[in-house]
Structures are given as C-alpha cells and as structure tokens.
C-alpha cells in the first residue's frame, strides 16, 4: 500500500466475473493493478504488479485456487489471498484456507460484502464467515480425534476453550461485535482470537508439509 490505496489483483477464469469484480473494486476506490485468467498467469505477473490482495477464484483450469494460494503465500509472503468460490466445495475451501488464504466469500456475496472482505484482507484480518468457522471448527476436531493417544503435547494444534466458544458463535452467524457483547470482551479480542485460530491452522499445515517432505526425502533434492 504505497500511497494508502489498496492494490488488488483479480484472478478468475470467467471473464464476466473478472470484469465485474474488478469494476466493483475499482469503483470503490481500490486500485486493481492486474487481472489474470488462471493461477499460472497470476504467478507470472505477481512480482511486477505487487498487489496487497489477490482475489482468487477457487475453480480454475491449469493451476487451481488451492495450488495458486500455496505458491503465492510461499513465494510472496506479504501478499494476502481472498478466495472467491461459486461452488463452495468444502474440502477445496478448507485446503485453500490451510494453504494460507485469509478467508473466502461465495461469489454471489454483495458488492459491499466483497469490498469489506477485500479491505479486511488488506489489513491482514481474517475474513471469518460462519461457513469458514464451521469448516475450521470441524478441522480442529478432526485433527484432535485423529491424533494418537500417546502423542507428545503440542504435536496436534488444539483450540482453547475460549477459541472454541468464539468459533462456535461465529459459525452460528454472530458478528464479532455481537460476540464481544455476549462474552463481555472487547471487539479487538474477538478478532485476535479468530486470527490466532487461523494462524494456528496454517502454521500446522506448513509443519505437516515440511514433515511430510522430510519423511519422503524431498528436502534433499
């Protein structure tokens, strides 16, 4: 954000959407620095246009949204990814979020919602919708029940009671302000908690990938 204007790149294989999203964001005063029609093109153009936020379609030919997210996060650590999805396919969404996307929106979300999500992504805040909260909650539960009983402490990330409580409220559609009121904590604290949850998940995913790479001997090549 060189001059305070959020720089955005829009990646979607449907021209109609690419243009609609770019127009919405442009009209709202954001700077759409580039558009791309698939993940590979996005990665090629990314170093030159230096966006703050990449708005990424999940379903694309050649390089799909999950793989693109993984590479953007790995190769351009400052760039944040907001996923847009038409189908809401749960497993792919979870993978994208674990790979480093800071949130997702379904495509039919209204322009103000999209704008708000892009702005929040730009400031590094997680876009925690009810859908994402339900997914993340499920994923932590899955990891906990899949973990062996004799596993050393800290191998599998777990949610604190507070985090679980907040995530459940988000998943039931409460806004962070409503949650703050209900739990008698500050709005900021709620956001910190949701942010922590996402970081925990993404960090664990990176650790898992690294562990897998070492086990498979991929680190030696």
């Amino acid at each position, binding site marked *: 954000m060189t001059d305070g204007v959020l720089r955005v790149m829009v990646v979607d294989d449907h021209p109609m959407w690419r243009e609609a999203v770019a127009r919405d964001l442009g009209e709202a005063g954001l700077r759409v620095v580039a558009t791309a029609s698939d993940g590979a093109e996005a990665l090629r153009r990314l170093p030159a246009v230096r966006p703050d936020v990449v708005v990424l379609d999940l379903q694309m030919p050649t390089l799909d949204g999950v793989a693109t997210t993984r590479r953007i996060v790995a190769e351009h650590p400052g760039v944040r990814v907001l996923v847009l999805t038409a189908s*809401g*396919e749960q497993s792919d969404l979870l993978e994208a979020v674990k790979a480093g996307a800071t949130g997702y929106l379904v495509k039919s*979300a209204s322009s103000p919602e999209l704008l708000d999500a892009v702005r929040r992504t730009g400031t590094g805040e997680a876009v925690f919708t009810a*859908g994402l909260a339900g997914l993340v909650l499920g994923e932590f539960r*899955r990891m906990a029940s899949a973990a062996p009983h004799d596993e050393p402490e800290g191998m599998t990330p777990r949610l604190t009671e507070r985090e679980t409580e907040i995530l459940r409220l988000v998943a039931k559609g409460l806004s962070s302000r409503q949650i703050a009121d209900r739990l008698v904590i500050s709005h900021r604290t709620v956001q910190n908690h949701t942010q922590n949850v996402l970081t925990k998940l993404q960090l664990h995913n990176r650790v898992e990938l690294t562990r897998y790479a070492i086990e498979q001997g991929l680190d030696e090549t």
Partner: protein
Amino acid sequence: MSGSRARLSRRARARARGRSGIIGPVERSAVVTSEGGLVADDARLWRAVGVFRVAALLYAGLLHVRVDDEYRHGWGGWAVLAVLAVWTGYLLVRADRRPRALWADLALACAAVLATRFLDDPERVVAGAQTLPSIYAASPVLAFAVWRGWRAGLGAALTVAAADVAEVGGRLSTTTVNNIVLLVLAGTVVGYAVELFRAGRRDLARAVAVEAASRERERLAADIHDSVLQVLAYVRKRGGEVGGEAAEIARLAGEQEVRLRALIATGEPVSTAGGEQDVRAVLGALATGRVSVTGPAEPVLVPARAAGAVCGAVRAALDNVAQHAGPAALAWVLVEDEDDAVTVTVRDDGVGMPAGRLDAAEHEGRLGVVASIRGRIEDVGGTVSVVSAPGEGTEVELRVPRARGRTT
C-alpha cells in the same frame, strides 16, 4: 475414508473442466463393453463343454477299440459312437443351445448308455464294465449345468444315473456307484460354479454401470453445475444491484444458486453401505438465501434413521423461524462432529421470545414446534435444548449420540 475419495474426484473434475466446452461426448463405452462381455463369457462356457464333448468322444472311441471284440455286437458299438460323433459335430458347428437340443442331447446320452446293455457281453455288463459312451455321458450333465445352474446339472446327472442303473439291471457294482457319484458331483459343482460366475458377472456389470453413471454425474457437476452456478451467482449479484424488477429475478436466481451450491458443496445425500448418511449433505439441502448451513469438510455420518430425525427437526425449527422470527430473520445451521455425538444448532437472529414461554406452552399441553423437535430427536436417543430471549433470536441445539466403534 469416503471423504477423501470424494475430495479427490471433485478436485479431478475441477481440473478436468475445460474452459469453454460444456458437453462432451457421452461416456457409454464402459457399459457397452460389459454387455458385449456378457455374451462372450457365456460363449466361452459353452466352448469348454464342446471341448469336453470332443475329448470324451475320442476317449470313448479309444476304449471301444480295446473292447470291440469282447462285445456281443462290436459293430453296433461303433454305430452308436458314430451317431454321437455326428450329433457332437452338429452341436459344435451349429452351436445349437436351444432347450430342445439340450434335451435331445440328454436323451441321446441315456440311449447310448442303455444301448450298452444290448450290445455288450451280458457278463461284462453285470461286472460293471464301462458303458459305451463312458465319460461322454457327462457332457449333457455339464451342458445342463451351464444352461440352468446346479439344479439342472443335478437333474441331468440323476437322469443319466438312472440310465446307468437301468443298464446294469439294478445290480450296482462299485464302479457304477462311483461313476454315479462323480456324475452327480460334476453336475452340481459345475452348475453351482456357473451360478456364482454369472452372479459375479452381473454384479460387475452393475458396478460398471453405476461407475459410468457416477462419472457422468461428476462430469455434469464439473461442467454444467459450475457454469450454471457462475451465471446464477452473477444474476443474483448484478440483479440485486440494479434493483426494481431485476431484484426479483436476482432473488429467484439466488435461491437456485444456493440450492445448487449446497448440492455441490457436500455432494448428494447418499447412504453408505452401512446404512449411514452424511448429515451435512442432508441438511445442506435446506439451505436458502436466508438459511446458511455450515459444518466440517468431511462427511458427518450417522445412521440413516438419526439423519432423518435430525433433518425433520431442523426443518421444523426453520419453519418456526420463517413463521415467528420476523420477515427479515436469517438463520444459521451449524453441524458439529464430536467423537461421541453429533451436534446440530439452528440459530436465528429474529425477534426471539421471553424465557419460559416455550416451557409454558409445553406444560399447557399445546404441543408446539419444540415438542415436535423434541419428539423426533428423543426418538433416536438425543437431547434438545432451546435458548431464546426477546430481541436475541432463538437457538435450538440438537445433540444425537453416536454409536461407538464407527469407522472413519
């Protein structure tokens, strides 16, 4: 894990999705091949019977060369074998498998066995010497087994056995008994094996057909669903922005979009082999523009009965939201998969109600929505709790315990 398979295939189809082509050529080759295979496999069985016939006939010929001069009428033996040879040639060349031909085959074999009694030396007959057709008599038994399974095989074997008994005039020697036992075994075992083979092949054909159908559905999901979703979402978004009449079109498009997305997001609510259903998929179908359904990425499997109860209860709760929570109320359905239970929460942001009103309603015997929800869930061993306050909406939590020892 069934989830990972579904995930892989969905990802594969997302990758396979072309950029412009909507409908490719329909995949039907697998089904056609399998049906072609059915005919070919039966032909192979019949060919095997044919090979046995020829080998058995040659064997009978060789035997007769050795005992020709011991027969009362050696030439008569050759005549019978010649008839069998012509018959075998006819069966092989014309591939005649009509029931009439099979019955004739059986009759001919029995006749050949009985002919031995008149053509051979009576002393040899009494001693239980080989019959004229010897093991050729087993070929109609095999043919019946291939034709109609083990019962037909057994029936044919008993018929030939009766001819055998008649041939020796009822004085059974060890050899004859042994032959009869072998004949009965051959007919039954081969018939049974053929039945197993056919059943297996039917299952395979069915599996291939199901597989082809599901591939076709996945391809449709990838191509058409995605394209349709993109357009519906676009209409919903733009129509809403334009307003006026377009807003109504946007609303309609939005409803279809949500339903289609629910279908894709969790897949269709199909039952697993163990009679379990994915609660997410079942509830996903209840999503609308005002109701969002969230849950884990993996299927949440519970017995179909429990899934039905939960679905009915959630439907009742959502109906209640639509009726009482106010026109602008939104609702959220959250599915949580805990190790020992499945929790489903239905929350709305409507007008809510004062504490105790629901209890009072239940006490007064006015069986309202809560009673209906409670009834369904308690039927499957679950519990229900309802929290509501004026202005804060209503939250209904359903908890259904899960049987131990589930497989994940």
